[in-house]
């Protein structure tokens, strides 16, 4: 089992090196003169439809993202508990099924509450 994770980790290292080389090859080719590099102030300005950009770009997030994130956390916990249940259902039988339905029901109560409170609307 550990060798399997070792394979994945080593594969990840190779993938990282591949990605790094893909970014660095044009950088290296620039010094040979194959890839051009002539920046000027117009070229490096922020893209906009013909005018200067106004104000800061790094604004704060809208509050509605926060609601979705909160709901996501609750649902994710449900999912994590459902996975072991799903794998072992044949051994657990009807007891496991009842437990899972009770768990889903508890989360569903919160879900319906959130729907009624209009947190699911994108206003």
């Amino acid at each position: 089992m550990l060798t399997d994770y070792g394979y994945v980790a080593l594969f990840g290292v190779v993938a990282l090196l591949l990605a790094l080389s893909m970014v660095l090859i044009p950088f290296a080719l620039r010094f040979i003169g194959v890839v051009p590099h002539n920046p000027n102030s117009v070229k490096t300005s922020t893209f906009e439809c013909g005018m200067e950009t106004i104000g800061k770009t790094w604004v704060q997030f809208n509050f509605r993202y926060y609601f979705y994130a909160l709901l996501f956390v609750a649902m994710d916990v449900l999912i994590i508990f459902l996975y072991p249940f799903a794998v072992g259902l044949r051994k657990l039988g009807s007891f496991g099924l009842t437990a899972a339905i009770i768990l889903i029901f508890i989360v569903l109560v919160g879900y319906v509450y959130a729907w009624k409170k209009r947190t699911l609307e994108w206003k």
Partner: protein
Amino acid sequence: MTELFANPWFHWAFYTVLLISFALGAVMGLIYIERRGMGRMQSRLGPNRTGPFGLLQAVADAVKVLLKEDIVPANADKVVHWLAPIVAFVPVLLIFAVVPFMNGAMLADLNIGILYVFAIGSISSVGIFMAGWSSSNKYSLLGAMRDVASIVSYEIPLVLAIIGVVILAGSLSTNEIVKAQANIPFILLQPLGFIIFFAAACAEINRSPFDLLEADSELVAGFHTEYSGMKFAMFYLVEYAEALAMCAIISTIFLGGWQGPVLPPWLWFLVKTFGMFYVMVWTRTTFPRVRIDQLMALAWKFMLPLALINIVVTAIEVVIWPTPAGLPWVLIIVNFAVAGILIVTWSRLMKYGWGRVETTLR
């Protein structure tokens, strides 16, 4: 041959080379299929000049993009701007580690394979967000925010749709799931799960009709507006490699992976994967792009409840008939009926303003 593969270093080296060349080669194939297929569906030719039937178009594009100037905006967060393509690219490649090409022919047969796919796969959205945030461009930032919102929403139905399959297979290992489909592919036992998974996968990898984060008509190109040259190419590559990974996962867990008559197993796997991608191209040309509120409503009000019901129905079936003898025709009919009834009735609820509270639950 078998004693060679018993050597872990040879096993690792063989599959590393195989997976990387498969990912890069198949992506070129996918780009060709997409451009030609879309061209045909829109009554035009598509690329047909470079090489026979335009087959070398992707190669020509790759060389062109390698020789392009790399422009970094003056206002950008330079380090993050450089790192973003790498962060997006590595996890996508890592997904292929658990994709079974034949019986046991995979880099690592993890016993949590499916969970690993989604744990790793969602990291690349961090790279996309880094790209949008660091570009210091409002279009990019909007695209990145939309990406985070859609990833957070569609992760849930995506992962819930899998649970039905896991219940039937009784294992999380991708190879075991394929083996459990020896008699019957799970798409017949999980029609609702398949539809939810396919739609959520399209949203997760930002393909039309859910490609809001790069909606060309409003956001220019979304998160990669400020990218050029090789870094732009990497995002392009990530997009198609994600599509390839999702198609491979769909064919593994729903279409029976390498199982199939007559043809060799790896060929079955490739046929199913590319067939799935063709369906994605088809949906892209067929459906118009959704609005952002429709995108969120579809995930939270339509797919999530249906996926939960699907899990409960599947679990009840498995408890009643733990090991159905022969082909479970009753289950197939019941499941298709449940899927049809649920989709039709729930669509009626969505008809009035996508399940808005003001109009339905007052």
